[in-house]
């Protein structure tokens, strides 16, 4: 397998290349979620009647999932703290992400759908499923990458990536910190 180009190892800006790239990635994700959420907020404020639909979101499940993600973020930053033992802490983070997705896809959404609140039943729910779904895709992608990174870390390779995937994971948590009040609390 060919080695890294010397380009990757240089650091004229003072920040290592991988971390610099992750912060740029975060910036581009801020704009994607920002656009979607700004659109949602505009509609939600302009349509006070959506509150009746929003009442159907289950704040208990949303709240539990919030704690799941916050705790998994704790595990991610702990992984960063431990360079060598990072692998298992990353797996703990993945477990949190998987639990989040399992609750959402296994309990919450089927309940919503059974109650008649589907993607097309009302624009509130269109936004709800789109925003939460886009977020969930990022959760799943993050879990997949973390599995890959923890495998390398276990063999003492590419340890800097533990921090990098952590930054991404904290961003995913950040999005949920805003989604939770928007979708579950502000009714």
């Amino acid at each position, binding site marked *: 397998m*060919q*080695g890294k*180009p*010397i*380009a*990757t*190892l*240089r*650091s*004229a*800006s003072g*920040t290592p*290349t991988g971390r*610099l*790239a992750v912060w*740029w*990635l975060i*910036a*581009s*994700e*801020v*704009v*994607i*979620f*920002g*656009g*979607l959420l*700004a*659109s949602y907020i*505009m*509609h939600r404020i302009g*349509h006070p009647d*959506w509150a009746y639909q929003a009442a159907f979101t289950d704040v208990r499940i949303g709240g539990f999932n919030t704690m799941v993600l916050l705790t998994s973020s704790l595990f991610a930053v702990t992984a960063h703290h431990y360079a060598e033992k990072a692998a298992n802490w990353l797996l703990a983070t993945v477990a949190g992400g998987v639990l989040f997705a399992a609750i959402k896809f296994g309990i919450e959404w089927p309940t919503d759908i059974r109650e008649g609140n589907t*993607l*097309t039943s*009302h*624009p*509130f729910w*269109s*936004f709800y499923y*789109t925003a939460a779904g*886009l977020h969930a895709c990022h959760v799943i992608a993050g879990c997949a990458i973390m599995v890959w990174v923890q495998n390398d870390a276990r063999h003492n390779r590419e340890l800097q990536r533990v921090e990098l995937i952590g930054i991404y994971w904290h961003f995913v948590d950040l999005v949920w910190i805003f989604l939770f009040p928007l979708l579950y609390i502000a009714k």
Partner: protein
Amino acid sequence: MSQPTEVTHGAHAHEHAHEHHGPQGAWETFLHYAWSTDHKMICFQYLFTGMGMALIGGFFSYVFRMQLAFPGKVVPFFGTVSPQQYLQLVTNHGTIMIFWVAMPVLIAAFGNFLIPLMVGCDDMVFPRLNRLSYQVFLLSAIILVASFFVPGGGFGGSWVAYPPLSARTDYNLSPIGCSMWISAVALEFVAFLMGGINFITTAMNSRAPGMKAFDVPIVVWMIVIASILFMCSVGPLIAGAVMLFMDQQVGTGFFDPGRGGDPILWQHLFWFFGHPEVYVVLLPALGIVAEVITTFSRKKLFGYRTVLYTTIATGVLSFFVWAHHQFISGIDPRMANVFTITTVLISIPIAELCFVYIATMFGGDIRFRTPMLWALAFIAEFLIGGVTGIWLGASGSDIYFHDTYFVLAHFHYTFYPIAIIATFAGVTYWFPKMFGRHMNERLGKIHFWGTIIPFNFIFIPLFITGSFGDHRRIYNYNHFPELATPFLQDLRIMATVALVVMLCFQFIFLYNYISSAFRGPKAEKNPWKANTLEWYAASPPPHGNFPVLPTVYRGPYEYSHPDRKQDYWPQYIPDDKEG
């Protein structure tokens, strides 16, 4: 961090690749090129894909202009053009030219080729991400072209895809094509987000030792700033594309006011990106022109920092002008007031850049080689485009001009210099470096005049027809009595004939390009006697680019320096050495 005499993988005769240069089957050869992570190979992948898509987009323009000049007649190599086909042709012409020609060629191809070479390193910082971004891009191109062949054909709702036409498949009559179109666009965005992260990180981090921020060639800055503009503006539209796709296929009502959505939201999502997008493609073009005019005037760039700061100011300001595309589409008139002011304001930094370029050439020792001709044409034609934009940026006059051919002629006088003229400038300028051979100068000049003169004969008539009231996206003006006059129809025919002539001259370029790549006279390392680091590498550069990575001692435009006998002073030569 990095020592001055880093030895690259190239110096070790990159075993991985060279091992296979023995008896190699066709498949291995194909894989070697198609699966490469070398930034130069990825440049060619983007470049040739973009050129191929340009042939398709150009063919579409030929077909619909023939329909406009001779309505209802059979178009050679196509057949008769139905109204729906007409809209599909103009929609995909615009979409292809912006997303699958201008962006891949100007940003991805030139960015990939130039950035590592000009900052003096051996490759992009993430070579495999680079390869992945091309593959996603290729997939997007395939999906778009495939959309022409599905039942219902390609999307015909104009490249701006306003709902409800774009959201309701019972309106746009291309139920599969419309979703393939939006998916292709969204994938292209993802590809360029990935590529952009690569370019920005490489330019920020991998500079050669001694290369301070103001020693970076302007074209690298321009591509990086363009990537940043793209990254900051495309997010809302990606969200919008997801919403539009769902409206089309799943039955949501994001843009349906009767169900609580809003079509104006799409307009804002689109144009919040759409306006910075034009600067995303303009900046690399300006960068290419800067490199060419400094080299061929043997003169320093008139104000490096001026150019840089002006460009950054333009980039920031470009986020505050977008609603000038929506003056009569239903936005609040008070918003129109604000956007008129910002739009007219943004013409100032761009005009200033043009003046700086002219000042760069003033008093220089100008050589009128083919690249320089293209660069000069860029400045002249773009100025026309920019000036005509003032009428459109003022909301009052835009009430009349919006959706007429005046707008179309304006943006072709800006886009064509960007996507075509600057591309030819860059292609002819860096051809010796890319292929190690020279293009034929005489054919180059014939191609130049055969492109520029007809180009003006296409679009000046369209300014006139637009002023007389020709609306866009009309497939047959015979249906409008006040527009079906011989005077206007003659202008439309003139535009079409000029287009056909111009397209024919492109065969000269194709012949020149292909034959010179294989059989042109061999080029040395630095045939134009330029200063920037790419001319230090061999022509063409090997894997790893430089046997020894260069160190930088001065800025990129030290031409005709009084302390020096020769009229150029490359960045990589230490101060005390001659030549």
